[in-house]
């Protein structure tokens, strides 16, 4: 027991391992000490604890100064008070001082209601601001996906930690000192000119309104209100397992049917599913994967392996910026969102007799980078984008709240056909390992010409940052690599680049946990167990689907028969595949 420490916190004894902080010891017995700068993604190896906000101060018997509980380790016999009057008054002063240099536009701040500073000020009963003086005047920037308002930055540096440690993107940094200190970019540039990949994990981490997504709800509502426009919507798999949290439901609640009902009530003309396009992605990406593997095995020197998934726009930006020498490795398949847009505006619109310019395609995504993706020039026809607006799960929740209905009491509805029909393989796209599992289900059957006994490939699942597995394709071993979080992706990619790792296929998702942990999802405020529950819900959703392999989706089969021809054929190639650009030269400091 020499590595265990016993101490007393608020009159309760607790025994924890040596090296534990007071904050974690308190949390282990359910004592909540408020924090602002502390941010941890449990199991993902990321912890921000600069000890700078001083909100978590506690009184330690025998010590004259208050201690920051996030940065003070426990010691034997320590007696801690987390809620003495002295502690509370100190916390009030700390927050009071923060507010003295913080814009007071809470009523219209994008973070209002989710703001941790607002909540703290409320919890501490602050009703006036004692200190007044100069206010910071820093940069406000609107990039294609992210809004940065440096005036709201409280220097907790959570964004800096996720940008650098979790994602290894290195776009954000603390600059200047003293009153001028703020988290910004290199040379105060716009995000687009830096190494930023728009993954948005900084937005997910920001406790205040300094970082938020570009809000497109007003444009979507205007489109719905316009009688000349047909407005259709597609919803990504990870949205349906997280949206309920915005209405007080348990993390991991599956609200697919309620979500569809809400979207119909909002006035969307058709409610479709990105999952349909995920099945389509498997047809294209799976075919491309098999073709590349087959040619590679035959000794075709022009073929490179591994093939890498290309569904995730943050990941696409990341390799275009950091691995310009490897642009020929990722699959050329567009993401499901963009495939949906291409099919909706080229096939479905024609079938329905709707002119391209009268059709508005909206996507609901767990993602911030999707806002950037849908604006890429290569996804536009004569300036008209295949996907007009991409909303986050949070923005959808805001729109549902406008309806004035009780979301949790809404009845279930089904997606519209034909672009709303999908399989279990499509829904697992929302989880790390899911895209490659879905591809494996289809590729196995095409490759071996045998039916799969068990469709679940549990060896591809889990939350390890980098995973490797070998799947037996009836005697042919297929080596698969999986990474989630861009720092993990970098580890895997560096191995591939150095020739130290041999894989047939690699799946990468930019956000921890995959899309379920996406930057556009309800704020988890550092509670990663919420993301884990969403992940479980994704697999439950898969298990309940009558069809669980993409190539068995009857509407996908019909689409190929009626319109596309063969997977990876000429028409499919034109509509469903893309190409990548070397972005390293356009950006500063790569």
């Amino acid at each position, binding site marked *: 027991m020499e590595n265990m420490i016993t101490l007393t916190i608020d009159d309760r004894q607790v025994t924890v391992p040596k090296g534990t902080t007071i904050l974690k010891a308190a949390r282990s017995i359910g004592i909540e000490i408020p924090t602002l700068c502390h941010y941890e993604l449990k199991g993902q190896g990321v912890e921000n604890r600069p000890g700078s906000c001083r909100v978590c101060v506690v009184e330690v018997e025998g010590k004259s100064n208050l201690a920051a509980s996030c940065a003070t380790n426990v010691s034997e016999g320590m007696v801690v008070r987390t809620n003495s009057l002295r502690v509370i008054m100190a916390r009030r002063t700390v927050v009071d001082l923060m507010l003295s240099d913080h814009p007071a536009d809470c009523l219209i701040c994008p973070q209002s209601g989710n703001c941790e500073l607002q909540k703290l000020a409320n919890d501490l009963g602050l009703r006036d601001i004692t200190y007044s003086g100069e206010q910071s005047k820093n940069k406000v920037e609107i990039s294609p996906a992210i809004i940065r308002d440096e005036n709201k930055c409280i220097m907790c540096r959570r964004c800096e930690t996720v940008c650098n440690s979790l994602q290894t*993107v*290195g776009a954000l940094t603390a600059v200047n000192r003293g009153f001028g200190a703020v988290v910004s970019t*290199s040379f105060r540039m716009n995000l687009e000119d830096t190494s930023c990949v728009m993954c948005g994990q900084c937005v997910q981490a920001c406790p205040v309104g300094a970082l938020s997504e570009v809000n497109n709800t007003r444009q979507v509502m205007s489109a719905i209100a316009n009688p000349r426009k047909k407005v259709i919507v597609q919803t990504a798999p990870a949205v349906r397992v997280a949206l309920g949290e915005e209405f007080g439901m348990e993390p991991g609640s599956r609200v697919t049917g309620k979500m569809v009902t809400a979207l119909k009530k909002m006035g969307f003309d058709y409610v479709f599913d990105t999952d349909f396009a995920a099945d389509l992605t498997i047809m294209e990406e799976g075919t491309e994967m098999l073709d590349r593997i087959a040619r590679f095995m035959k000794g075709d020197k022009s073929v490179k392996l591994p093939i890498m998934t290309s569904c995730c726009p943050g990941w696409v930006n990341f390799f275009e910026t950091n691995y310009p020498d490897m642009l020929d490795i990722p699959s050329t398949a567009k993401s499901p969102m963009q495939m949906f847009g291409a099919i909706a505006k080229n096939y479905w619109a024609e079938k329905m007799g709707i002119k391209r310019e009268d059709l508005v395609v909206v996507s609901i995504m767990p993602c911030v980078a999707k806002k950037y993706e849908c604006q890429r020039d290569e996804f536009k026809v004569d300036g008209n984008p295949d996907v007009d607006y991409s909303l986050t799960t949070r923005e959808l929740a805001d729109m549902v709240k406008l309806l004035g209905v009780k979301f949790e009491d809404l009845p279930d509805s089904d997606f519209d056909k034909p672009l709303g029909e999908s399989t279990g393989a499509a829904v697992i796209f929302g989880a790390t390992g899911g895209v490659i599992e879905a591809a494996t289900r289809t590729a196995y059957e095409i490759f071996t010409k045998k039916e799969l006994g068990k469709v679940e490939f549990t060896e591809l699942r889990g939350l390890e940052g980098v995973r490797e597995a070998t799947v037996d394709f009836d005697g042919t071993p297929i080596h698969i690599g999986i990474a989630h979080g861009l720092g993990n992706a970098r580890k895997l990619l560096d191995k591939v680049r150095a020739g130290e790792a041999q894989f047939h296929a690699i799946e990468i998702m930019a956000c921890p946990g995959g899309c379920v942990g996406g930057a556009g999802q309800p704020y988890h405020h550092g509670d990663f167990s919420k993301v884990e529950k969403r992940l479980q819900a994704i697999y439950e959703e898969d298990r309940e689907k009558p069809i669980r392999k993409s190539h068995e989706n009857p509407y996908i089969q019909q689409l190929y028969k009626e319109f596309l021809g063969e997977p990876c054929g000429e028409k499919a190639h034109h509509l469903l595949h893309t190409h990548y650009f070397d972005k390293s*030269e*356009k950006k500063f400091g790569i």
Partner: protein
Amino acid sequence: MSHIEINAEKLNIIKDICAQYDNRPSDVIHILHGVQGALGYLPMEVQEAIAKQLGIPVSRVYGIVTFYSFFTMEPKGEHPISICLGTACHVRGADQILEEFKRVLGIGVGQTTPDGKFSIDCLRCVGACGLAPVAMIGEKVYGRLTPNMVTGIIEEYN
């Protein structure tokens, strides 16, 4: 923003200094010291070259450069002017001396005149409190200053 070219001579100086520290990211502060000593200042393209050499994001270099007041992204003038704002100088009217230098040269603190001749910086105590208020131009110390002396001092360098 695309890459700004940096000439080969400067790049070699940067590479040499980084090499003295085996391109260790943990020595970035020493490296910045060395490079500023050699080149006079640390503009964007120099910071980018250092970051590339050390294999770290340029944001990290920029964060350090803006944190320490010693580092500068502006080229210093041929005759750098330092106004002491230490306690003794302060109580004897250093702020008026500073204002007069700013007025005569038409630049602010941390800036350089367009002809590159003068730059103004502030510092805390040069250890000549008996002469307060004090300013330094290059290595030369001027003491017991009054605002009406400033124009004459500048003319010595023109």
